[in-house]
Structures are given as C-alpha cells and as structure tokens.
C-alpha cells in the first residue's frame, strides 16, 4: 500500500466509525442507568431525519445559506427529535414500567419507519418541486475542515481534515468517560444501573437518573444519525441508507465493555472492518464474510467477558429491568 492509500483508509475508517461512536457513547450512558435501550437504531434514524427536515425547511425558505444557521438549525431539530423519542421510551419504561426490550424494539420500528417515511415523502408533503432532497450547501458547512488541514501534509489529512462532528464525537466520549468515572453524579448513575433498590435507599432519585441518562444518551446517539446524513453522505438522504449501523453501535457498547473512551478506538476499528473489503483484492462473496467480522468479534468479546467474569467488565447488573420500589 502506498502512503496515500493508507491515509485514505484511515480517513474512511474514521468517517465510518463516527456514527457508531455517537451511538455507542449514547447507549453506554443509557445502559449505565440500567435501561437497555434497543430503540437506539430508531433514535439514530429520527435524529438524522429531523436534521434533514430542519435543513430542508431552512434551505427552502432562504436563498442565501448562512453557515452558522445551516449548522445550528439541523442540529437543534435533530436534538429535539431524539429527545422526544427518548422521552417516550423513558415514559413507557420508567414511569409506566413497561418491558424495556419490547418498548425498545417498538421504538426502533417506529423510528426507522419515521425516517424512511419522511425521507421518502418530505418533498410531497411540503409541496415542493425539487427532484430530491440534496442539502449540499448545508453539508458543506458541516464538512468544513479545521484550518491548516491542507497545509500540514499527511498530519493534516489524517487528523485535521474532518468536519466538526468527528471531533465532537471524540470529545463527548471522553467527557462521558470522565463523567461516569470521576464525578459524584456519575457514581450515582452507575449505582442506579447496578442496584436501583440500594441506590434508592441511599437517597438517590432513581427515576430522575434514568430519565436524564436515557434522554441525554438518546440525544448523543441521534447526533450519529445527523453526522451520517450531513457529513458522510453530503446531505443526501436515502431510505435505509443508514442501514444496520444502529445495531453495530449497540455491538460496540459490548466490545468497549461499557467504557466510552475504549469506544473511540473500537468505533474506528469497526469502521475499518466495515470498509476493509474495498482495500483487499477479494471476490465479492468474501466481502460479506469480512463484513461479518464486527459482529463475530463482538460475540467473542461477549463470550470472553462472561467467562472471565471480571466484575469491572460486566454489563450493569440490573440492565433491562424496570424498577418498582414495592417490588422485591
């Protein structure tokens, strides 16, 4: 491989890994509160399409696209969309104590449908005459690389050539790691996920912690969808284009053993495995065997962690269970 191919490989691994990183950081935060939110793939679709709706309405309403607004409007729409979806999940599982798996899967069905529906019908619904949703001007604002990116040779290309959301994903993962490990609130959150009854007895508000963790986690995950449409695909929404990345993000949670900072490396590794076949001269059937690798690796990690049974690498003890104070 020559140098430029290696640089290109790293760049596309990072581009592939970033949505996964957003998704897994959000899901780790959620799972630490004991909520196994299987609605994350749906939330990521909702985050993506809400950003598209915001951007589309903005681009239709104005002739001159201001970069700051072009970034902010889709961002706010996306956050609001994923917040509402997460609130719905919280209301059903925490307040109404519904089964988390069922609620999560329903949210994924709904979210993916919501994304594809508005992606496919938005133009008709607002009576516009454009042939397809192409938010190229807005995407340009999202893809604006850091300064000096093109002046620093390979260093600039590998580290500085991405839109701001790539860096945001890393920052969020580091902050989430620090929050969970080093702060009192993080400790409380982990206590809720491990043993809500004990946390409750210690005076920690279980429901509030679950709500906050799930909603903030959902909003972070939704950003993964936004990154995908605005940066990765240059503002072009295609139905089902996001694919199974939401589930891959959940796989990544296991792979990184519920540690957001490990998720940074994990996501780029998954991203690399996702695109590896482009760089190997294999036939098209083998390509799918290679695409299977992220899942196989996750299964192996899952098996090894459960066999070694080390306390710090386990899923939160009450993951997937609703908490009712009178139930014991």
């Amino acid at each position, binding site marked *: 491989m020559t140098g430029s191919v290696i640089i290109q490989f790293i760049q596309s691994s990072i581009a592939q890994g970033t949505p996964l990183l957003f998704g897994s950081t959000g899901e780790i935060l959620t799972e630490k509160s004991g909520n196994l939110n299987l609605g994350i793939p749906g939330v990521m679709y909702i985050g993506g399409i809400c950003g598209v709706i915001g951007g589309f309405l903005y681009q239709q309403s104005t002739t001159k696209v201001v970069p700051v607004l072009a970034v902010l409007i889709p961002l706010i729409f996306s956050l609001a969309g994923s917040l509402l979806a997460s609130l719905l999940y919280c209301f059903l599982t925490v307040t*109404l104590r519904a089964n988390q*798996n069922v*609620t999560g*899967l329903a949210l994924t069905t709904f979210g993916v449908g919501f994304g*594809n529906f*508005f992606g496919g019908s938005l133009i008709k619904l607002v009576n516009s005459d454009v042939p397809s949703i192409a938010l190229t001007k807005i995407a340009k604002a999202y893809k604006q690389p850091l300064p000096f990116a093109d002046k620093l040779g390979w260093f600039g290309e590998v580290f500085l050539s991405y839109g701001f959301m790539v860096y945001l994903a890393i920052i969020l993962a580091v902050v989430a790691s620090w929050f969970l490990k080093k702060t009192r609130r993080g400790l409380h959150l982990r206590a809720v996920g491990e043993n809500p009854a004990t946390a409750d007895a210690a005076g920690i508000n279980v429901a509030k912690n679950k709500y906050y963790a799930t909603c903030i986690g959902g909003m972070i995950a939704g950003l993964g969808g936004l990154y995908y449409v605005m940066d990765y695909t240059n503002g072009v929404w295609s139905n089902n284009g996001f694919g199974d990345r939401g589930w891959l993000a959940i796989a990544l949670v296991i792979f990184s053993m519920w540690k957001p900072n490990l998720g940074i490396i994990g996501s780029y590794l998954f991203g690399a495995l996702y695109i590896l076949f482009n760089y190997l001269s294999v036939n098209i059937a083998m390509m799918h065997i290679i*695409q299977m690798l992220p899942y196989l690796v996750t299964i192996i990690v899952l*098996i090894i962690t459960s066999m070694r049974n080390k306390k710090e690498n386990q899923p939160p003890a009450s993951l997937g269970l609703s908490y009712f104070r009178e139930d014991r």
Partner: protein
Amino acid sequence: MKMTENATVGEKRSGRNEKRSKEPLLHITKRTDIPLSRAIIIRAVAVVSALVFGGIVTIFLTGDNPISIYVTIFEGAFGNSTRIWFTFQQIAILLCISLAVTPAFKMRFWNIGAEGQVLIGCLATAMCMFLLGDIMPTWLLILTMTVASIAAGIIWGVIPAVFKANWGTNETLFTLMMNYVAIQLIECFLKIADKSGSNTVGPDKLNNGWLPNLFGQQYLLNIVIVAVLTAVMYIYLKYTKQGYEISVVGESVNTAKYIGINVKKVIIRTMALSGAVCGLAGLLLVGGTSHSIDSNLADNRGFTAIMVSWLAKFNPIMMIFTTFLIVFLERGADEISSKFGLNSSFSDILTGIILFFIIGSEFFVQYQVHVNKNHRIFAKTRKER
C-alpha cells in the same frame, strides 16, 4: 415522573396535618389479580385510542376524511380474495415466528435473534433447492429442505443458549449479533449463486422443491401448518411437564433449582425448540411463498414477533388476535400509502403508534393508581369551603 418518585410514602401518616404537604398526590400499588373482563376492556380502550390517534395522524398527512381512511385500511387488508389470502398468509408467517419466540420468553430468555434464526432457515431451504433441485425427486427434496431448515434454526438458537446456560453470557446481545451473521451469510450465498451481482435469487434458479398447493391455493398449506402449530404450542406450554418447567424457570431460577429442575438443560432444550420453529418459518417463507431469497426476506418479523408474543402475554391463542391486528394495520397502511403516493414505511409508523399505546396500557392492567385524598390540593379546596 412525579408519581414514581413519590409512589410509596406510607399511609400511616395520613391525617396528620403537619405532614400533609409531604404526601404524594398519586399512590401506585401492584394489582394482585384483575378480572379478565377489566383487563380486556383496558386493552380494547388502548387499541381503539391508538386507531383514533393513528387516524388523526393519517388525516394530518393525507388530508383525506376519516371514514374514507378507515375504509381504505379495510380494503387494503380484505378488498378482494387475493388480498384476503395474502393477508392470511402474512398472519400465518408472523404467527409462526411469534410462536417460536414464545417458549424462550416464557423462560425469560430474551431471544431477539428470531430474525437470524428465520433467515438461516431460509438460507438452508434455498441452498437445498439450489444445490439439490436437479438431482432429487421433489418429495425427497422437500423432506431434505424441512430437515435442513429446522436443523439450521436449532443451531442458530442453541449456540447462544449454551453460553447462557454455562457462563451466563447476555443472551439479548448475543442473539442480536447472530442476526447480522445470518444476514451476511445470505448475502454471501446470493453472490455465489447469482454471479450477476443481483440482491436476490429468484424462482428461476430455485425452481424445484416448492411446497404443494392445497386445493389450488398456494398459501393454504402454510396457514394449515401454522394453525396446527398454534394448537400444539398451546398444549405444550399449558399441559406438558416441559411446558411447566419452562414457566417455573421463568418465574424464578432459584425455585427451579430447588425443586430439582435441571435449569441448563431446560434453557438449551427450549432454545432448540424456539430455533426449530423459526427454521420452519424460514421453510414456509422460501419453500411455500416466495420461492426466492434475499437478506430482507424476514422483513423484521423476527422483531415484530417479539412484540406480538409479549402483547398476547405469551398465550398462543391470544397471539392470533395480536398478529391479526398488526398485519391488518400493516396491509391497510400500505394501501393508504400507495393511494396517496406516500412512502410505504407509513405502516411502520402506524404499527409503532399502536404498539406504544398497548405497551402503555399494560401499566393500568398491572398497577392501580390511587389518588391521595389528604394531599394539599384537596386540603386547600376543603378549607375554602
């Protein structure tokens, strides 16, 4: 949120004026048992309000009048005899997968890998048709397909079960990952079987080993098989020793161990059963209906089945109704979206809405909300009087 936080302040304090402001407005208790009629009414109210809400959303999006929308939904599912047959075929397949996941769920084994287990059954069937189609007589081929698809489903189901039974590996995440391994295996097969690079292998290549038509109806055999399966599963869960063991393990693993049930064996055996029925669903899909294979053939039914089974409280007879409801809505919503030129994912939105309503309604079946008469809101109004 308020009510969960304050759910259980003791009732002893009621009446003491100085403590009055601390008492919660709402108090929640678990129902010990609820009359069946009451539970049915609560669920019916949920379904009706979901339909009304879904109708409002549809009106908002299409601008059509409500009656015409409901008529369209009904016509989509039952408009003519082709549609009726197709609707019942869809019900049969979804019901079959729902039956498959039920024993595992009753055991509290969260198998969300039904999608993968069905797909691997599809793959096994298609591979038999593709490789052995020319060299075997049809009856032997169908027999081989049946054995292969069921075996494939069992393998896909048992792998996570073995790890769960021996090392407590998280089965939800494990089975989830197995789905995508199955999908990639199918993609791989498609590329090998069809060198042109298309995403499906159709009836022209899988031209032998089609399940026979009953009375000239292509879908009737599937429907009959699933109907028999429903009855068998109902009896198995309710009246057999193994069915009883499943519910004991589901209620409490410790109790099961105490009374001498081999929990590991029950977990593995039940998942083998789950996988086998999923594999069978794969056979019915490829051999009985589509005669083609692509990686989207299960169409997320593995996930929908989980919700169907849960909504029916793991009761196979109730499942007939819940599957009917979901399929009816899907078919109806498809009709609406094609009539108004909207995207076909509209049915997912409607399904999502109805699921959210029913999931929410379960709270009122399981818990009772008491309004605290000593709360300051009521106290104030009393003073004013």
